[in-house]
């Protein structure tokens, strides 16, 4: 991994010194923690680091005007972040010349990749990014319960939610300028951190990621209350794949699942 990190740092420094990008988004290590860091001078590139515990999805920063305003950008991108970049591209949120990836993962450093090259890198080295087995086992265990048991489980979890929206802030897919919970003229769903408002918020957040979630885990890692958000995300991803063959984040111009419609879609549930 140290060779990969060295190559990534050298590329970041090169892009900055050549003026090809104005800002590099990466990770730095502070104590036992990994944090996002922002580098604008080649000499600072040594501060960049990467390992498997870098859990923030840096693609989330692309919705931030202060970051976006400094394009062209380079983003240190794990396979999950690369997928998020492709989802953002397929949803017309970012353009080819704005963002470049410094692609890095467990199999090493993939170089400076434009959005158009990410799909090939992912398909070659990470063709089957599926959640880890422990998570899939928990999903299966929960899916086997009755609807009442599941509702009970989730009510208990959702009750912990303070509506801090750290999960939303962490997710690159949550880029709405005005999220449903912020629609307050009139209020669409209760903003009180309790009961049905929490239920509505959690379910809507998860549903809005169906077929878009890249499984990066940043939302769950950000949740101060420890809600098991990945159980919802992973189950919805399974459904999106099984029902619609959706595997978000592998194609530059894929049709977003919840933004597209086909006459062949199963409509039998509409009565």
């Amino acid at each position: 991994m140290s060779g990969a990190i060295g190559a990534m740092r050298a590329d970041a420094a090169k892009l900055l010194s050549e003026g090809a990008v104005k800002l590099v988004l990466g990770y730095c290590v502070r104590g036992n923690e990994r944090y996002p860091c922002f580098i604008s001078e080649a000499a600072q590139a040594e501060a960049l680091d990467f390992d498997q515990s870098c859990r923030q999805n840096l693609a989330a920063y692309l919705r931030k005007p202060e970051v976006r305003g400094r394009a062209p950008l380079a983003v240190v991108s794990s396979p999950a972040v690369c997928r998020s970049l492709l989802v953002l591209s397929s949803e017309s949120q970012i353009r080819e010349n704005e963002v470049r990836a410094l692609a890095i993962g467990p199999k090493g450093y993939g170089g400076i990749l434009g959005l158009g090259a990410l799909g090939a890198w992912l398909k070659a080295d990470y063709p089957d990014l599926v959640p880890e087995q422990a998570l899939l086992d928990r999903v299966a265990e929960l899916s086997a319960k009755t609807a009442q048991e599941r509702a009970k489980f989730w009510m208990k979890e959702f009750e912990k939610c303070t509506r801090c929206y750290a999960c939303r802030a962490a997710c690159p897919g949550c880029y709405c300028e005005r999220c449903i919970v912020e629609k307050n003229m009139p209020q669409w769903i209760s903003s009180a951190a309790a009961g049905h408002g929490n239920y509505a918020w959690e379910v809507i957040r998860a549903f809005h990621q169906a077929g878009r979630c890249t499984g990066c885990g940043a939302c769950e890692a950000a949740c101060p209350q420890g809600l098991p958000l990945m159980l919802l995300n992973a189950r919805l991803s399974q459904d999106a794949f099984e029902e619609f063959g959706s595997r978000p984040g592998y194609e530059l111009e894929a049709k977003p699942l919840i933004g597209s419609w086909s006459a062949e879609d199963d409509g039998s549930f509409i009565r």
Partner: protein
Amino acid sequence: MKLLDRSKSTDFAAALAAAGYRVAAPVSDGGLVRIKEWAPGAEIAASEMPLNSMKDFLFPRTEVIGRWTLEGDGFASQDVRPDAPKTAVLFAKPCDAAALAVLDAVFNWDCKDCFYNAKRDAAAVAVLACGSADEHCFCTSVGGSPGEAHGADLLFRPADGGLRMIVEPLTAKGKALADAAGSALSEGQAQADPIARPAERFDPGKASAWLASNFESPLWKELSLPCLGCGACAYACPACHCFDIQDEGSRSESVRCRNWDSCGFGLFTLHAGGHNPRADQSARWRQRMMHKFSYFPQRFGRLACTGCGRCARLCQAGMDIARACARISPRENA
């Protein structure tokens, strides 16, 4: 001296519950420690830093403060009283107790907030002095101390290598707690343990002075770049007290709720007409710093940060208010 064996922490909680207190204590809950209402069987993690603060019991994340029912053609206003059961907060942190002065000041400023004050009056707060601190603790930089219990009714001092606590009631409410504890407490002698000494990382006076004349500093853009604008920091903070008022209705009833709010959210200052005076995250994060270290001290003579470090521990983006303060007001000897 009065002593509490650490192994009797739950006996103490049980005795208080039997005496009619709602007991709030740091409880281990699915791998995380929270201050929660204690129930028999729950394991108390007395020395852990809980992820929430005791403000949850005085200023809850949502609270009904008004209620109307539809009767015929009109609304009838219903009497809503504060829900303020007699409460004992056990093993709170010194920095959480210090934050009570912040909440007391703001909820008794131009208007006496009956909902807050009813809960505050009904609460007895027992602080456990800190034998250890982590790298995010900085009470000593903001005038606090891990061995003090300003704002508390009773102080526990760790003793005999953590096996026992020396019990020191500080107020009538604290004495009532000790009296209600019954056989959970014993008389005896114990050797107080050393108190944690987190490093002093900045000079708060200098930070306030810098802030007073640097509203327009270019540093705000740089410092705030990682912030993603959630409410994690404000909601975990024992001193943050901003709220939103929302009316919510069903067909037959309308309730007015007071919900936590955060200056980190874009919606916080968005005007109905669409203008937002805090247009970007740097303006919002500046507000967080300004409020805690400049405006609040100007108005109330104390900082609105007690150095608990929760905001930095929880922030996914690595925003760290103590680092920011150290940046603008380095200590001379540092």
